């Protein structure tokens, strides 16, 4: 049962993180911390989406000329044009 002396303090414009002022200068709707929240809908806050891995984790590099080579310093050139050893090219 509520107390009829109760004063409601309404926060309905959520999502505005504001640390520029002291706690006495900000408005009630200002937030102290908005963390991983989407604020696109005006007035409400929504938990943010994440991210998904694309492809598989890279653990070595495999050149197109070999199916099993590991990270190497080889200069496989099957897919590249070697540009020069001298310093001028045509």
């Amino acid at each position: 049962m509520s107390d009829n002396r109760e004063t409601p303090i309404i926060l309905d414009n959520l999502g505005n993180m504001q640390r520029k002022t002291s706690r006495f200068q900000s408005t009630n709707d200002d937030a102290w911390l908005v963390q991983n929240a989407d604020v696109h809908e005006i007035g409400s806050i929504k938990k943010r989406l994440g991210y998904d891995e694309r492809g598989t984790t890279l653990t070595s590099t495999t050149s197109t000329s070999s199916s099993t080579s590991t990270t190497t310093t080889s200069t496989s050139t099957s897919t590249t044009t070697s540009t020069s050893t001298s310093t001028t090219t045509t």
Partner: protein
Amino acid sequence: MSNIYGLGSISSTSGNNRLLAAYGNDIVNVDTGVGYGLNLSGTNVEFEPFLDRLFFQDFTKTPLTYDPDNDVFNNLHVKHTPISKYLKRWRNAMYLGFVKINGTNYPSRVMYSNFPDIDGNGNKTIQWGFMSGSNASVVAGSSNFTAANAGFKTYQLKVGDPLIIESGANAGLYTIASVDADQIIKINETFQSTQSNITYWAGGNWFDVETDNSDTIMGLSENSDLLLVYKQDTLHRYNGSSLRTVRGPGTSSNRSIVYYPEFDINIYFHGSVSEKTGIYMYAGSNSTNISLAIQPFIDAISSANYSSVVAWPEGNSYRLYVGNLSNVNSDNNAYNIEMNNAVFTYNILDNKWSVDPISDVIKSRTYSMRESGVQKIFIGNDSGEVFDTPSGYDFGGQPINFRYETKVIYPSGSDAIGHFTRIKIFSRDASLVNVYYKLWGTPYEVDPTWRPLGQIGRDTTELKINRDYSRASGIQLAFEESGTTERTSVIDKITTYFVPETTQIPEDR
């Protein structure tokens, strides 16, 4: 596993979408895991799409371009191109910032290609109006400058371009008087001495941006049809013929720069002295600090990370990965900040901020590819992983920690004490959200820790505050949920109920 040193993406005119990662000593197709055998040095690699190709620069390797239709690298469009740290397509040409010529760095120089034209094979291509080498020769008394295997004509050197001989008896600056053939040009005077194996470079497609100081080029972008040249401390704009300095700082991190063509604004990070460190917006006139609302979090960024912050766009938001935050210097823990792998998110339309800890150390980003007509945004971490963002309900399998803290609410001002009786929460899909509170001014103390109130149950949830722990002048509320589930909690409205007791703080006897 190691860093993703760079990410590049492209959607070709023929409809081939490719995502490439600089990883280890190679560039790798992320979707197939297959590399191209480029033997890179492991430094940052920057990519830029142009002419249906991906250009790249790593400040070390002779540049190549990537053909997305044939899935190969070759030297089309870069047959003789300076090495640089940064590159940007602007007004139908490619611009390079912070270049290296014959092993010498030019940290304030911008070089650029010519506009595309048709080569001898009927293909559209660009030349750079640039030639360099170390096998040129001259004869005393002659104006001929000869270099075997050069391409003065092919690479479109012009009358009036400078020729720089870097050492020897003829070292100095000359002007090209004629371009007779690929391997011979004439200058407008005669050489003093016979000399061979001359190291030289020639070309006029360049300009310097305020040299002779330590303020070096840090990145390139565009705005209002102008080329933006970011240095560390200053920002400049180039209209194709002249430079102008913009009011506002430059950037400490090339990868913090994001251009929003739909708004014609640039947002970027500047890290230096504490008074200037922050996130800035350039909208065509001046560059202004837009991060004052989260200044304590800006202050918590490690200065060691100023040069490695990474940003990307997500819809109308700017998202900036800044690394770990630490700003612990108060006895009141509410003012202390400690957070790992923080991302600052700025909603451009609403001017609102959030601070979002994620699960990964982000090293690179790309957003030049479209799939099914939708722009795709990718970020790369320090462990060989590339992520598609925003997507899914976790951070690559790790939980998303959602948290919302209200400011301290003083219903009747900080001098009136009373009882907080209950709170009412209006929400959607929020049944996993836990609610906490902290009392401020009890009457002289602040709760050191959060007290649990309960969990949101229904669309309208009422939680009663224990009367034994309800007397204060102010209250702060927190809402928290951490998980990987599909449901995305929404909180619409919070109502706090307060019964005043006195209008004056009693004396402390």
